[in-house]
């Protein structure tokens, strides 16, 4: 497969220490760096949602049992088929070292039975393409692509 050419956007690199508010900081820095792509509101939302859910998962699961948290490294590389995002952390591996399927939680239920969570992976897989996870050494590596600013 021929890798699509890179666009003119410089490689984005954001490094934060895991915490709930670090997610906001990382999103802000990453999205600010995307400014040259002039994303419309839908594209901006798509990137922000995917990144937010992926980072929340790391904070809440990968680092949940690690008292002092740890690093989260995010890189963004824009090609002509969209924004390639790579997220690396040093927390615990995904269960069975596999991605969750990410089915949509059922909502056709009585109100007391409505889900209050479980939307994260569904949203990531619904919005992003080519979502790939690997456990490499002591690192979780998540790669995905958000099809925004195509042909830019």
């Amino acid at each position, binding site marked *: 497969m021929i890798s699509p050419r890179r666009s003119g956007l410089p490689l984005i690199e954001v490094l934060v220490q895991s915490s709930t508010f670090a997610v*906001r900081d990382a999103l802000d820095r990453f999205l600010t760096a995307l400014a040259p792509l002039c994303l419309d509101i839908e594209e901006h939302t798509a990137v922000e949602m995917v990144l937010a859910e992926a980072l*929340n998962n790391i904070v809440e699961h990968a680092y949940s049992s690690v008292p002092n948290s740890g690093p989260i490294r995010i890189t963004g590389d824009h090609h002509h088929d969209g924004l390639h995002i790579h997220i690396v952390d040093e927390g615990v591996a995904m269960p069975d070292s596999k991605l969750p399927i990410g089915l949509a*939680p059922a909502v056709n239920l009585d109100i007391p039975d409505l889900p209050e969570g479980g*939307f994260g992976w569904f949203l990531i897989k619904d919005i992003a393409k080519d979502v790939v996870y690997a456990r490499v050494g002591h690192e979780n590596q998540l790669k995905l692509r958000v099809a925004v600013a195509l042909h830019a």
Partner: protein
Amino acid sequence: MEVSVETEGDICVVTICGTRIDAAVALAFKETTRRVIEDSAGDIVLDLERVTFIDSSGLGALVATYKLLTPERGLVLVGMTPAVTKVFELTRMDTIFRMYPTRTEALNAIVARAL
């Protein structure tokens, strides 16, 4: 979590002052709305006009708030911005919540239902 609370008869209009309902504030959101619910008696109108981002944790907090009110009382959402609308559509929560563009329309609808 900062909110502003106004009343219109039995109805409480709660405006979220921040721009995000995310994992960082989801617990505080639930706690704040729980207190508003305890201190009031009627339906709650939640004004999300200033909210430009909600994640799955924030969505979960809204569902939790809805459950606290039901079945006796209602929750109505107004002022949904495009990003918030998108999350509701993707998760099909737009089929669960009552939503109106403006608080005036929401208040009129609640009053009309009560008649």
